[in-house]
């Protein structure tokens, strides 16, 4: 336990109402990594010693200084639903940013400055009031704005809006020793409109497809770029449990195209990008379609065909490119883009299907968590950022490998995963999604663990991808030759230079899989590095 005198010091910083070491309060902040063998598998997750609710950057600085002085680890959190967001070592502080919820929109310069506790639902709702928008990530609207901008921040809308780390304009950064640094245009004491700062641009120290996951200090305030949107009304609706926006179809529409095969779908995406039209594009995994049609888990499994041959055929033929067009400036813009889109579709033999003009997933993400409801678990074994061709190919390879692990993994009959195109064709993205029974027995659990912890990262390395889910917990991650011979060394030097006592969200983003493996003898037997 952390000594009472330190508790007293921390209490003086945030006030008695905003600190707790009650076991029952701390219990709620226990978040476990997943070993997958069974629900009770040993992992790095533990209960923090003290939970704090700071209200200002100054309070965060003071907390961090105390932690640094006494060499106590701390974990910052907002949404708190990735395993890395929880304390993983004894004697940890958990810093919860709920009270740091400031949000200011600069409509003229199209940016927002947010506190560490602001989520995407709040930012998007405020932005839309000003005819602006942000990109709500696949993780859902409850995701924190700051950490997601320091990560990859994917959504089909990144096709046009670009990746989230590139939309960071200003950063207020509390270093692991408590010193305050301002990056981007905050560096010159300005507001956030500029972004590049005075140079050299130190934003690169923090942002990236993985970033540091809180292990290089705490960003307490950030200015993020917003993008122009149409001013027509997105009308919130509810039918049974489903909530969604009805789209104003004179300004915003979805189009579902059936493509003859995978190659044509990829070509279709590239051609749309080269024509510089569309707001979003994504390939829809077939299970999502069944989720959308189901009223419950029971109904999903009733609808999901049991006949494997029929299902394989359906999956093979289900090549749907889902395209969103937005008339940002006018109805005429949408009309023009629609003409171009239809011409490309006709040329490639892609057929427009009936498409419901509603959205519950991307303008605001109300349904991200439905991924869990099929089986009770959800895993993304890879999130691959590469060229679109390479990303798609890795999905094909994953689908082949998955056959050897199905069951216990849920049978999805060869589905190649969720992929999309980014940055007007400059990159692609693939996420290979897995489901398994949360009640899987030990034998099945071990097989799932083998797939997730060992087979998947090796396949990612083999197909030449950059993996940003397993990289968090894999020796094939930052230290991999895929990143260059000394990338991991340099990253480690940065960490050691700024956080020599490793107090900022220990153990950091590196090498945690080895620790989980060491805790679980059945996994240890599989380790071949």
């Amino acid at each position, binding site marked *: 336990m952390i000594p009472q005198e330190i508790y007293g010091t921390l209490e003086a910083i945030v006030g008695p109402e*905003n600190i707790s070491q009650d076991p*029952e309060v701390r*219990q709620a*902040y226990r978040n476990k990594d997943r070993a997958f063998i069974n629900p009770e598998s040993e992992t790095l997750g533990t209960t923090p010693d003290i939970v704090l609710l700071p209200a200002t950057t100054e309070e965060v600085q003071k907390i961090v200084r105390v932690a640094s002085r006494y060499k106590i680890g701390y974990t910052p959190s907002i949404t708190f639903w990735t395993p890395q967001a929880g304390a993983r070592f004894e004697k940890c502080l958990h810093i919860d940013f*709920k009270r740091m919820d400031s949000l200011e929109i600069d409509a003229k310069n199209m940016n927002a400055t947010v506190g560490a506790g602001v989520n995407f639902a709040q930012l998007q709702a405020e932005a839309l009031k000003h005819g602006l928008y942000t990109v709500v990530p696949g993780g859902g609207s409850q995701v924190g704005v700051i950490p997601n901008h320091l990560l990859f921040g994917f959504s089909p809308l990144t096709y046009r809006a670009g990746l989230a780390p590139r939309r960071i304009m200003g950063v207020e950064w509390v270093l692991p020793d408590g010193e305050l640094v301002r990056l981007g245009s905050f560096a010159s004491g300005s507001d956030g409109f500029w972004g590049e700062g005075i140079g050299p641009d130190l934003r690169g120290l923090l942002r990236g497809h993985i970033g540091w996951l809180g292990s290089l200090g705490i960003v307490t305030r950030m200015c993020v770029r917003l993008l122009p949107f149409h001013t027509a009304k997105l009308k919130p609706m509810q039918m049974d449990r*489903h909530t969604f926006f009805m789209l104003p179809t004179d300004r915003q529409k979805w189009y579902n195209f059936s493509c003859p095969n995978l190659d044509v779908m990829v070509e279709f995406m590239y051609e749309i990008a080269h024509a510089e039209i569309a707001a979003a594009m994504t390939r829809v995994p077939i299970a999502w379609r069944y989720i959308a049609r189901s009223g419950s888990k*029971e109904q999903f499994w009733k609808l999901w065909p049991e006949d494997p041959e029929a299902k394989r055929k359906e999956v093979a033929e289900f090549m749907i490119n889902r395209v969103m067009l937005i008339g940002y400036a006018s109805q005429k813009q949408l009309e023009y883009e629609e003409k171009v889109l239809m011409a490309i579709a006709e040329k490639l033999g892609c057929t427009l299907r009936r498409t419901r003009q509603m959205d519950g997933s991307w303008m605001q993400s*109300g349904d991200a*968590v439905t991924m869990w*409801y099929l089986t009770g678990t959800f895993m993304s074994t890879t999130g691959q950022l590469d060229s679109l061709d390479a990303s798609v190919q890795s999905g094909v390879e994953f689908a082949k490998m998955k056959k050897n692990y199905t069951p216990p993994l849920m049978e999805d009959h060869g589905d190649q995963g969720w992929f999309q195109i980014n940055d007007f064709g400059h990159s692609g993205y693939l996420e290979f999604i897995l489901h398994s029974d949360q009640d899987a027995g030990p034998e099945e659990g071990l097989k799932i663990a083998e797939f997730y912890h060992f087979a998947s990262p090796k396949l990612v390395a083999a197909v030449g991808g950059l993996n940003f889910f397993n990289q968090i917990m894999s020796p094939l991650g930052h230290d991999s030759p895929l990143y260059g011979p000394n990338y991991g060394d340099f990253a480690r030097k940065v960490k050691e230079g700024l956080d020599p006592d490793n107090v900022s969200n220990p153990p950091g983003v590196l090498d945690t899989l080895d620790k989980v493996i060491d805790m679980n003898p059945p996994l240890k037997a599989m380790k071949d590095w």
Partner: protein
Amino acid sequence: MVENANLRLEEYRRDAESCPGCRGCIWVDHIFCSGSKYSMRCPSLYHRKFDAYSCMGRNKIALGIMKGEVDFTPKAIEIIYQCNLCGACLAACKRNLDLDTDMTLETLRIRAVEKGAAPIPEHKAINDKIAQSGNRYGTDNSKRSEWLPEGAKVSDKPEMVYFAGCNSSFRNKEIATATTGILDALGASYALLDEEKCCGNPLYESGDADAALEQAQRNIAALKATGASVVVTSCAECYKVWKVDYPKLLDRSTEEMEYKVLHITQVANQGIQSGSLKLENPVSMRVAYHDSCKLTRCSDDWVPWHGERGKYGVTIPPKVWRRGIKGVIMEPREILASIPGIELKEMIRNGMSTLCCGAGAGVAEAYPEYTENVSNHRLDEAEDLGIEMLVSSCPYCKDAFTRAAEQGSRPIECVDITQVLHESIYGKGGL
């Protein structure tokens, strides 16, 4: 001890274990989020901020208790009972996951009572008063119907019973009086129970399921004695108890009960829409309607489930999921929209995204500072709309808002919908 699998904490272990920790349970549905200021719908977390005071945190405590890792310590009890059981997490979680969060919270309280850690003193005091006097205030229950106005057209052979509830019988008597006035204007055939007793809501929500079951049986027998087959309430809590908790305690479905439950807003709206209830007197006010959580999210029909989980946790036989979206939402709005002179504004958090007033589930009695904080926050939201009157459909909401408005000298009148309706039927000053 109530022998009913649906009231056992272990029945919801899988639900607690399946929580992925997304925090969806605390926010207004993202599609309906209207900005940063009023985006939270969990009153408990609004008040205390630590995750333990959310459904997500209480799930972990429930799991700890089931595993023997957590005891019913005073802190655990405080966390468990600083919750309005308002169904915010129920509606939010079931948007995506079908976890029975409300039942985890309710059975956690039942377990606390079974273990002797609850009812907490403030709740025990109320429960004792109910046992001794038949009402939550410990008042002479023979005076319960003194509010009944002379000339009220009470029937000898009623089709429906108006169940006024403790609050409207002893505190906000104008609500009971207004309700019978509305029923009279409708020409309804109604009566009161012969010496009505508390519905048992404080008993059930404090976790004393045994006492609640006895109260249910007593009240149902009293209803049967009248020959009526419909219960009308003006109190959202009484409504929920008769419609949901009595069947739950008796391990039957709402549909299987011998009676039907209606809130007065449902009865009145039917009359308005059919033309039998005339609203002729204008009420010239800018008004917003506060959705009572018990009426809105907590009153989906109860359907017991006895079965097993198959592969992937599929329920066999398929469970009928209660999602907190089939409550009384449109009727009060249609009523207010029908009253001449009223300019109706929507609260930012409305319908299934409503914010509880902060009083329910024994919180007002045990943790008054919590209720004060939450009801003031709700009044801030109302004030931002520039309204003059906040209308609710539950006497406990009215109490909470009236208290907060008076303490803060806020220029908002807090009334029950029955009062507004009565004024439009009979003119001002009739109550």
